């Protein structure tokens, strides 16, 4: 699913001429955990199909996460209604809620806090109305645990395996992350997150193909495309994958909502902005091997660099 909006609105992730892992979080200017884009309808249909065809891959929860799931329902509906009043509305009479999604022409009635008033768990329900993947991290004693999540568009990881896992264990596979002490630093940052002060960060990787659902479970379907990248087709085939990650403290359960909105942009689209082209070329040329490897770029890094060089040459000769 390619970027169809205005390029100026693409969440371009780089600053400077080098990239290293860091907690590049900033306080949000618009404190909303969700965003509705022009591909809303298309992505919702796709997401719902994944959720119903592969529920164990796309949805996991531990029994004690239900109160936190209701908190997510409350915050997501509040943000949808405040930000897009023409598309979403809520009628509340005590605990009886009627949620209307005008884009999909749907009306849902339920009793807030009453699990049996919905046909599925609260997080599953609300995730069918937003493009974001929604992850619930519960603060238990001195750590954060992935206690529930709806994840349709992962960047090569498995929610089913990571459910119930501590923050540092989740990030164990990232080379250099622990060695540099970053896992402890970011955990510390997250544990101090406060209600009323949400944060946002961008994460990126490259991928061959334009699939949103690059789960670990389906690696054998999409991973092979990496071998087909050449400097001729890279512009069309290779995409930069940017995750807009938003972090909210949920005050009722003292937990964290982590929403992930994934955007894909073909390199040929990125290359139309000359500053981006130049900067991305510099960053990729300099990128340390362990990051190249972890982001799955090793197989086709040379081809991409060659493609970018060609584009830069053309710009210079113009």
């Amino acid at each position, binding site marked *: 699913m390619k970027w169809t909006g205005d390029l100026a609105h693409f969440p371009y992730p780089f600053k400077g001429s080098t990239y290293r892992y860091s907690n590049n979080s900033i306080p949000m200017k618009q404190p909303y955990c969700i965003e509705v884009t022009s591909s809303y309808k298309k992505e919702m249909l796709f997401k719902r199909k994944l959720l119903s065809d592969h529920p*164990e891959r796309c949805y996991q929860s531990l029994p004690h996460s239900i109160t936190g799931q209701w908190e997510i329902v409350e915050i997501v509906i509040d943000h949808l209604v405040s930000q897009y009043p023409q598309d979403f509305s809520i009628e509340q009479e005590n605990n009886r809620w009627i949620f209307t999604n005008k884009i999909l022409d749907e009306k849902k009635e339920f009793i807030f806090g009453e699990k049996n008033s919905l046909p599925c768990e609260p997080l599953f329900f609300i995730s069918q109305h937003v493009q974001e993947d929604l992850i619930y991290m519960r603060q238990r004693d001195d750590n954060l645990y992935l206690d529930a999540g709806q994840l349709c568009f992962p960047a090569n990881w*498995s929610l*089913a*395996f*990571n*459910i*119930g*896992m*501590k923050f540092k*264990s989740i990030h*164990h*596979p990232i080379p250099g992350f622990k060695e540099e002490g970053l896992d402890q630093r970011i955990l510390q940052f997250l544990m101090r997150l406060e209600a009323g002060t949400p944060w946002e960060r961008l994460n990126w990787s490259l991928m061959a193909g334009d699939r949103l659902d690059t789960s*670990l*479970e*389906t*690696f*054998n379907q999409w*991973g092979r495309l990496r071998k087909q990248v050449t400097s001729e087709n890279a512009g069309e085939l290779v995409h930069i994958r940017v995750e807009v990650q938003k972090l909210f403290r949920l005050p009722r359960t003292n937990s964290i909502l982590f929403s992930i909105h994934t955007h894909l942009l073909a390199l040929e689209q990125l290359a139309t902005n000359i500053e981006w082209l130049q900067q991305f070329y510099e960053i990729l040329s300099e990128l340390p091997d362990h990051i190249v490897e972890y982001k799955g770029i090793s197989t086709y890094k040379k081809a991409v660099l060659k493609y970018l060089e060609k584009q830069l040459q053309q710009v210079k000769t113009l």
Partner: protein
Amino acid sequence: MSMDAVFIEGKRKYIFCSDEHGLRVLSSVFENVKKEKLAYEWYHFSAEKRECLEEFLSKQKMGTFLYVELPYSELHTVQMMAKRIGFSSDETQYFGYGEKWISIFCCRCHELNRAEEQQTGLTCHQCELKLEVSDHYSELYHAFLGYPATG
């Protein structure tokens, strides 16, 4: 899991739980506890007495430290039991001996596969994907993640 039991000072009572084979790593700590004239109890474990152990552990008060040395085949069950009762990782040390098997979580079909501790690769017995054993561990599944084998 470290190889040697470490004596943890300042507890009001020490519990040693083991079967007759598994006394090796606990003996030095045990000598220490005796020398210091500290309160202790030995629990002689056998698989049939697992329920008694649960009752015994549940009766303990705060300030108790638990040392366990058992065959790997029993260790995890006892570990989970102690955790359920309320013994935290700061109040316990566990040591296993004998044959050790590990579980491998198939990244494609989520099936748990049994493997030997040193094994680096296997084929998932359910979906037949070739897996590479990683060191990414899940406490919830008590299993390591198996990634798609490369090459």
